């Protein structure tokens, strides 16, 4: 009986190992295409977590199901099981293994974080740079994305763009060309530097295809950097709840070749500023005529942004 249990469980453990590896591979297909250098780093890390997580989840579930199948009391068996209060060795092992695991996962996460050099508040930004090469050498996996970040960080000029979030619209301003837009156009393979502003409440700058997110806080300017590496159109979503029309507060991000990007900037600069279509304003002015149930008084949306460039309405996009 005991030998059979050990053999069965060892066999299941090996199967489980392969299954976990398979799940780790699958995890790349659960997320949007990798459109920034940072995306690849996050996906590699996520894949490790998925593999280990699968192993742990099924590693607990399989013994439970096994017990339910083979350790059931007979219908008229009212006796007790063996009086086992514990096992010090086992308890030490299953305390030590999780400690090692979480420390390992923390270290892996820290390395990824370091390579991404995520900029939140300004003070710590430059501390990351000298460490980059060193960490890259020690890194066990593909360091192309990190190289891309490094190259982009070193290749001047960095694209400076002002981002303003408000209830409920996004406005992007290119200070060098004095162009404003409700669609964020970016050159591919360049380090992008955004200055995030909010006019009213908290908002969140979230681009799923870039795996990046940053809350935007009124009265503060937040620096934010990343490197797009894939040409295409990606949704930008407000990720931090900002009131009535929060769900409609989206914009497109268009990553273009540098030539197309310059062309777009030039075209946009030639256009006179005009009011852009704005979903929140559209719905607010339509009022309760939408036919939906109920409706309470809402904060009035800011007036539609006046910009050089805005895409054709309505803004409703998906990657690619």
């Amino acid at each position, binding site marked *: 009986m005991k030998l059979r249990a050990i053999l069965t469980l060892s066999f299941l453990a090996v199967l489980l190992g392969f299954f976990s590896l398979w799940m780790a591979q699958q995890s790349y297909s659960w997320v949007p295409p990798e459109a920034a250098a940072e995306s690849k780093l996050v996906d590699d890390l996520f894949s490790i*977590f998925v593999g280990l997580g699968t192993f742990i989840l099924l590693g607990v579930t399989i013994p439970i199901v096994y017990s339910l199948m083979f350790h059931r009391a007979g219908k008229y068996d009212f006796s007790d*099981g063996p009086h086992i209060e514990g096992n010090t060795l*086992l308890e030490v092992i299953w305390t030590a293994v999780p400690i090692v695991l979480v420390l390992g996962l923390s270290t892996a996460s820290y390395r990824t974080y370091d390579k991404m050099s995520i900029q*939140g508040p300004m*003070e710590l930004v430059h501390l990351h740079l000298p460490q980059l090469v060193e960490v890259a050498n020690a890194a066990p996996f593909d360091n192309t994305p990190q190289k891309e970040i490094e190259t982009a960080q070193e290749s001047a000029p960095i694209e400076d763009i002002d981002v303003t979030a408000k209830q409920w619209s996004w406005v992007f301003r290119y200070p060098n060309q004095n162009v404003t837009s409700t669609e964020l156009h970016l050159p591919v393979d360049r380090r992008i530097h955004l200055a995030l502003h909010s006019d009213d409440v908290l908002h969140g700058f979230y681009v799923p295809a870039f795996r990046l997110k940053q809350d935007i806080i009124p009265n503060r300017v937040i620096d934010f950097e990343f490197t797009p590496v894939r040409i295409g159109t990606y949704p930008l979503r407000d990720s931090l709840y900002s009131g*009535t029309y929060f769900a409609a507060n989206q914009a497109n991000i268009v990553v273009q070749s540098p030539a197309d990007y310059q062309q777009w900037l030039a075209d946009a600069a030639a256009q006179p500023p005009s009011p852009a279509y704005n979903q929140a304003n559209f719905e607010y002015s339509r009022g309760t005529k939408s036919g939906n149930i109920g409706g309470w008084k809402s904060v009035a949306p800011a007036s539609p942004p006046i910009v050089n460039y805005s895409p054709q309405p309505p803004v409703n996009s998906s990657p690619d």
Partner: protein
Amino acid sequence: MTNISLEAIDGTRAQPYPGAPDNWKRFFTFSTDHKVIGIQYIITSFFFFLVGGLLSMIMRGELISPETDLVDRTVYNALFTMHGSIMLFLWTFPVLVGLSNYLVPLMIGARDMAFPRLNAVSFWLIPVVGVLMIASFLVPGGPSQSGWWAYPPVSLQNPTGNLINGQVLWILAVAISGVSSIMGGVNFVTTIFKMRAPGMTWFRTPAFVWSVLAAQLIQLYGLPALTAGAVMLLLDLTVGTSFFAPERGGNPVLYQHFFWFYSHPAVYVMVLPVFGVFSEVLPVHARKPLFGYRVIAVSSVLITGISSLVWVHHMFASATPSWMRILFMVSSMLVGVPTGIKVFGWVATIWGGKIRLTTPMLFALGGIVNFVFAGVTGIMLASVPIDIHVNNTYFVVGHFHYVIYGTIVFGIYAAFYHWFSKITGRLYYEGLGKVHFVLTFLGTLLTFLPMHPAGLMGMPRRVASYDPEFAYWNVVASLGGFLLGISTLPFILNMVSSWILGEKAGDNPWRAIGLEWLTSSPPSVENFEETPVVIAAPYGYGTQQPLVEANPNPGLIQPSFMIQSPNSEAV
């Protein structure tokens, strides 16, 4: 409670307390009996569970299609705000306080809680909270629409301009709920420290009591921060102070610290007693001692300690400095260690036991599996780079519903079924219980699992409308949500009909070991005829050792000797 003698379980032991009310009316009085208060808490909060569930089903109705085509956006925002607030402040917290109220004094051999009147006051504040929350639907401008976290500046925007608005009522309700919980915390901690029966040393105290102690300690250190934050928010909103209002120089991120300093540990306030339930239910239905009882007991207190240092993981995207992100990443992941100890201990407990798949056992094991899944996604969320992608997406919604529904509600159901006979003196219907389990487990899987892929794809939470790319997973989740609604029907049918018509249970139908099983079902007002003297560690399954000494009713002190079917009357 003289109805005990009507049930003729043991006429000699169940002498009614003179003057004790003996009918359903006692549940509508300012009773100081911890058992009456426990039932008051449980029934009241279950009512709000149904209310919160109805709100969530309207939300799932809206989300079954990408456009806003069922309710107005303001209504949707009010729905998720009130769903979260009602489910936390009026269901999960109070129902667990109710269970703890009922069980802790019985489990430690006490006659009541340390402060019975304070206990009654704590309870009677809950209906006040409920009335305030529900009343907010009727004021101009509707209920709060700033979410259960009520972040300023959104929570400070008052579109109607009225002094009495949904947000003010919400803050008052939360503050009163906080006061009620602090009173409860003082009461539980005092009771557990001071009123354990003679001989019940710390390592003879049941794991459930340890977990309640660990949870209530969090209430004591954490709730003052939230309550202070709520008062500051109220002042900003009503008299124009500038704690958090950015246009007046306040700092909205400061509120997030106040809020999460309590509200993350609050998850452990809710989940710790459920861990305790698992630790009590598994040994009984597997007929084996709780594996590594001492470590499991101590790990509850470790969770209390670690939980005080994890709150910033809710703010990884809130312009938090890097050192803070890394520090709180490590501390948050460390929560996985004491919880891992518990999970492994539970698996080892049932391993090689004599398992009976009763309804409480099914709910406990289902809850453990769901909890491990929630733990895996929780560790992912603790990792800063992954969290930066999935923070504020449906991945988080899926994760915490696996904790709150998949684990905590499962544990609560397990507790209801496990102690039903103790509370009512009757047996529930096993078949209906199993139907309830199957529907609930499937409903949980269908509702909350699809939220993870939706979140990984980038669907933000709190949205009334979404891009069509997320439609598939949302349709599945909505259908699952309706199934979860249906799953409560066999439960309600079972509880109501069994309480009225169910077979008499006897004192100890599970042949369980524990002080609460040594007294009558339902217990008399004073709980125990004579104060029990504990002479052994809990969970003595497989030994012939009695739990208490010199009991006036010797048939009940040696549960291991009593061979009887679970359905038969107690001797």
